[in-house]
């Protein structure tokens, strides 16, 4: 796909919800303590958050996230034009989560609502879909909500050492507004490398399998180039960017990407140490954390999601201050 351009888009708010149930990686009983310490040191992940009831539908989490987002942004329910949900935790259930949410809130019947099946690249894909759709609506300004999240623990075998210490469950809702008078551009580079389908997949037993070496390789092979192409097409260089928000895969991959792009620590926001790998929610969680820490830099920002597919997506957007929250909920 060529580079996709859009304009007039701004992120107005993010609400993230994590389960209250906190797990310490040091307490995983089927891996010996020394190995656990090394896993924690190198992945950067000590604590993870997982839902208590493994049968719990993710729609409940999204409901809480949207409710909180509407409160953070003070958006009226009937002002929403688009609702897109991105998850791989719907358990093949129908109808689409977005349709269920439309009904549970007082969203208009004119809301465009559908789900997308993507993982770690999903937030950027969703942002692109929404930015292309919003500008096509015949209104001077319009609004969308992007729900992104996964209950990865529903797909994880409790004795699989390659995934158990990595993933947290989390959902997010992001408020995106389009204003026809806003001339600021945004740009996307969306790519798919299906030859990497075996890097992360669900097996016949329903459990997720992850090949850490291949995920590392595909990330190094494709993500830096994806970002460089995006910047080149906008006549920008890596150091012109105020901040980078990468999908939070693990510390090994994220540190390597930072080195490959020659970025300093101040340019890169991380949250993996606090929340683990939260799949498609990891970029909004990292942005919300930056807002709450008061470290969000306004200006040109790169968002880059990559993973299961193998799917890679980066966005170049102008970031402004936004209403954010990270809430722990009894899920």
């Amino acid at each position, binding site marked *: 796909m060529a580079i996709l351009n859009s304009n007039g888009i701004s992120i107005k708010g993010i609400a993230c919800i994590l389960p209250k149930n906190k797990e310490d990686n040091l307490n995983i009983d089927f891996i010996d303590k020394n*190995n656990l310490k090394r*896993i924690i040191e190198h992945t950067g992940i000590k604590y993870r958050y997982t839902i208590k009831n493994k049968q719990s539908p993710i729609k409940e989490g999204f409901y809480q996230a949207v409710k909180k987002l509407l409160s953070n942004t003070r958006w009226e329910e009937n002002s929403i034009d688009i609702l897109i949900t991105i998850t791989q935790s719907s358990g093949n259930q129908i109808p689409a989560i977005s349709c269920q949410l439309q009904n549970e809130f007082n969203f208009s019947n004119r809301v465009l609502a559908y789900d997308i099946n993507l993982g770690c690249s999903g937030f950027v894909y969703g942002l692109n879909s929404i930015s292309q759709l919003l500008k096509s609506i015949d209104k001077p300004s319009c609004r969308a909500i992007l729900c992104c999240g996964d209950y990865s623990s529903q797909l994880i075998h409790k004795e699989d050492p390659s995934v158990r210490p990595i993933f947290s469950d989390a959902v997010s809702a992001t408020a995106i507004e389009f204003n026809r008078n806003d001339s600021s551009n945004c740009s996307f580079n969306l790519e798919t490398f299906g030859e990497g389908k075996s890097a992360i997949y669900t097996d016949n037993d329903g459990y997720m399998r992850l090949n850490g070496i*291949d995920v590392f390789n595909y990330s190094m092979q494709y993500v830096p180039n994806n970002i460089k192409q995006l910047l080149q097409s906008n006549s920008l260089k890596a150091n012109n960017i105020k901040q980078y928000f990468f999908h939070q895969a693990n510390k090994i991959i994220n540190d390597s990407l930072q080195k490959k792009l020659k970025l300093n620590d101040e340019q890169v926001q991380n949250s993996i140490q606090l929340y683990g790998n939260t799949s498609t929610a990891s970029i909004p969680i990292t942005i919300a954390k930056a807002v709450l820490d008061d470290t969000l830099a306004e200006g040109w920002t790169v968002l880059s999601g990559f993973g299961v597919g193998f799917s890679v997506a980066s966005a170049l957007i102008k970031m402004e201050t936004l209403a954010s929250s990270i809430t722990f909920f009894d899920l």
Partner: protein
Amino acid sequence: MQLTKKILFVYLQKISNKSPTTIMTKEEFIHFIAKELEIEEKSIDLKSNFRNLKNWNSLNALLFISHLNEEKNILISSSDLAQSDTLDDLHLLIQQKTT
């Protein structure tokens, strides 16, 4: 043919602005892997099966590959590993990928 290829490679490296990625000698490779796995250099040789080495596990394999990528800008996939047995196989693989 091999020599011509090598001369061309060195020439291409010289004219590019990138820092040269030099070929890893057998001694350097033994030193590299011993350091990665935190084991004595003397305890291993090129005939050793890397899967039987003390401290070889999935995390250390990933760290080995990530550090190799950082130093030599090459990538070793899981299928590359599956097709290799000894340290000599791995060293050959690194040489092939470096050139």
